[in-house]
């Protein structure tokens, strides 16, 4: 038996993803977002979270998935990693589950269109449910994006 861990489950483009609960500060409904010019396309802007200005990124855009309009079930998950506080726009967030860290397998090269390096692994929940665990510090790593942009330019 490995460690028990609590995970927030959210939906993104027909897949289910997980983030460790201690890295999530809060989950908010969609709120007005102020656009920030001249930044990455997936950065949707900033929001006012009880007096603190927090950048919000569209996780679909971040992973290169087709972006979609916000719906009733869209949520902003505010995560805090390495002193960074960032909001993720996801399709839905509605579950907290316990998983055993032993059940997390190393991810294949690409899962649901997301590159493996953004992933910590794939956890098997129950018999048929697969949960993709995110590697948050890699998702929030900016230097790699900057390099990419420079290559394209």
């Amino acid at each position, binding site marked *: 038996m490995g460690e028990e861990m609590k995970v927030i489950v959210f939906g993104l483009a027909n897949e289910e993803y997980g983030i460790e609960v201690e890295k999530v500060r809060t989950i908010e409904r969609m709120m007005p977002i102020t656009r920030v*010019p001249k930044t990455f396309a997936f950065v949707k802007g900033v929001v*006012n979270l009880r007096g603190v200005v*927090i950048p919000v990124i569209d996780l679909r855009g971040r992973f290169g998935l087709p972006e979609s309009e916000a719906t009733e079930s869209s949520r902003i998950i505010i995560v805090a990693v390495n002193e960074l506080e960032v909001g993720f726009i996801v399709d839905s967030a509605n579950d907290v589950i316990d998983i055993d860290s032993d059940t997390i397998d190393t991810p294949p090269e690409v899962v649901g269109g997301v590159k493996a390096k953004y992933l910590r692994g794939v956890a098997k929940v129950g018999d048929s449910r697969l949960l993709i665990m995110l590697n948050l510090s890699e998702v929030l790593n900016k230097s790699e994006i900057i390099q990419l942009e420079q290559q394209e330019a």
Partner: protein
Amino acid sequence: MDMNAYLSMFIDESNDHLQSLNENLLKLESAPDDISIVQIIFRSAHTLKGMSATMGFEDLASLTHEMENVLDLVRNHKLAMDNFIFDTLFKGLDALESMVQDITGGGTGKADVTAIVASLKAIVKGDYKKEAASESSAAGTASPEDGNKLDQFQSSILLQSIEAGMSVFHIVVTVREDCVLKAARAYMVFDFLERSGEIVKSSPSAQDIEQEKFDRTFTVFTIASISGDELRKGIESVSEIESAAITQLDKESLIQLGAASAPGAPTASASIAQETVAAAKAQTAAAAASPAAPAATTAAPAAGGNASRTIRVDIERLDSLMNLFSELLIDRVRLEQLASEIRRNDLTETVEHMSRVSSDLQNIVLKLRMVPVESVFNRFPRMVRDLAKSLDKKVELVIAGADTELDRTVIDEIGDPLVHLLRNSLDHGIESIADRVAAGKSETGTVHLRAFHSGNHVFIEVEEDGRGINAERVKQTAIKNGVLDAEAANRLTDNEINMLIFAAGFSTADKISDISGRGVGLDVVRSKIESLGGHVSVESTPGKGTKFSIQLPLTLSIISAMLVKLGAEKYAIPLSSIVETAIVPREQIRKIHGNRMIDYRGSVIPLISLAQVLDCRSFPEEDELETEIVVIRKGNKLGAVTVDEFLGQSEIVLKTLGKYLTNIEAISGATILGDGQVALIVDPNALIK
């Protein structure tokens, strides 16, 4: 020199040094071989010694001096730290602390430190080790009696009181076992005793009792003006006190107590040296207790005078106060909006009152963070004097406006740039005595250091009457160092050439000196000042002198700004860089070399489209017949920024965009508007190229 002006600074700094001494000694105790910690301790001690000697606190200085001697040996590997040395040093620190406390309370900082000094000397001589062994046993037997021990001074006071016919009591107070707030109860007892007489000694010391460093009982010697029964009644009326054993003392019993204390624990075989060491323990306790004990208040608070009473607050607490306040500010704006929509008189009045209160509150909150620049300027006279000597020049430093206040965060950062500028002025600006005489100037050069408020800014100027900047040489050097090419250089005005000295890697000094001229300095000054949201400029007249001028924002947290609209988006432009606002009809916009320009008060200035800079698509600028413009200034360049609509002026709270979004072009931060939405703050300096 009037010392009172420096007293509060001395106290603050001493406390800092004592704190660091304590911390580092503790660190050293866990890693006794780390000489680098010893170095830090030594430096702190050394500074403390210097400060106290300057301020005339001889006892403080002499004790620090002895501690320094010990540390010096350790530092030079001539002595290895052991427990005894640590103990002695800590004791010394405690004594220093109580002296500083005494000074803070208006006392003279005098204390009997001969015992500690003796043990420190013994350490230096190296003959403490053989004593340490026997001493420990002696101290062991002595400690239980501690409570009843009186030093000579105390027993002579008691003796005199008895002779004068007053009643002296020895009181053992026991608190109840289930007492929760021992210190508070003890304080109530002390309070009562003080009202009914005078406490001569307490054991443990009043300080320790305050910090609950006692078991269930404590002992007090007091000279009381009331009877023993009344005393007992008074003490036992304090709740959670179990009992008070009161003994009235007469001459004989007092002498017995005194005799018991005199030679420590008289293990007859003890050598004289040992007595000193053993007595050290007893007397340290006494020394620590006496200034802190309430009895000390009767000692005349003479020479020290009243230092302005201050508390030091963690800057983080001020920051969180500021954050809370800024949320209040946001709500205030929201309330004002609602009130003007609802139009109910009593609501409007209440909101208006709240607005007034909150603007007073804002002033206070901002003032809390303000510190006079004096704290930075103070160290310059000495620095200039030493520099002038080493350069063999005569220089007079004239300081004006030292009471000008600036935000604490700015103060902390401004010291180094100013040192750079002053050094630069002395080294490059002021000529040598011979040159000055040859130029028909007085031998003594003058450097003015001025600070003053102007609008929302504070200006700090460094001006000297030296040789001025040689524009031609600056130009040549700039070309040589590749800062710019010859063609570009020829187009520059004199002032622009002068600004070149702030470029990176620039130095016109013919020879590199210790003081300045390594080509680092002025560019560092500039980047530092700019990182604080200010800017620096230079004016110079050859042969007459040079003036460096630093402009700094008063505060970094709340600013006045103009709110503007671009289509659906709102932005804030800091008022400090706005010259004026205007509306220009489309036909007045001219195209020159493909750039849009307008006439503005006799000159032609460029038109900058904010929507274009910010990629804002919801504002169809081309359709406008009349354009709202905001004229902004950067240095002496002007520019007209086109916007969709003016929303009005407002006090806004600066917020960062967070660590994820850094270096966004033309955006310096964000603020939260009355409706809870985030508006970005435009950086006007990025708009004018």
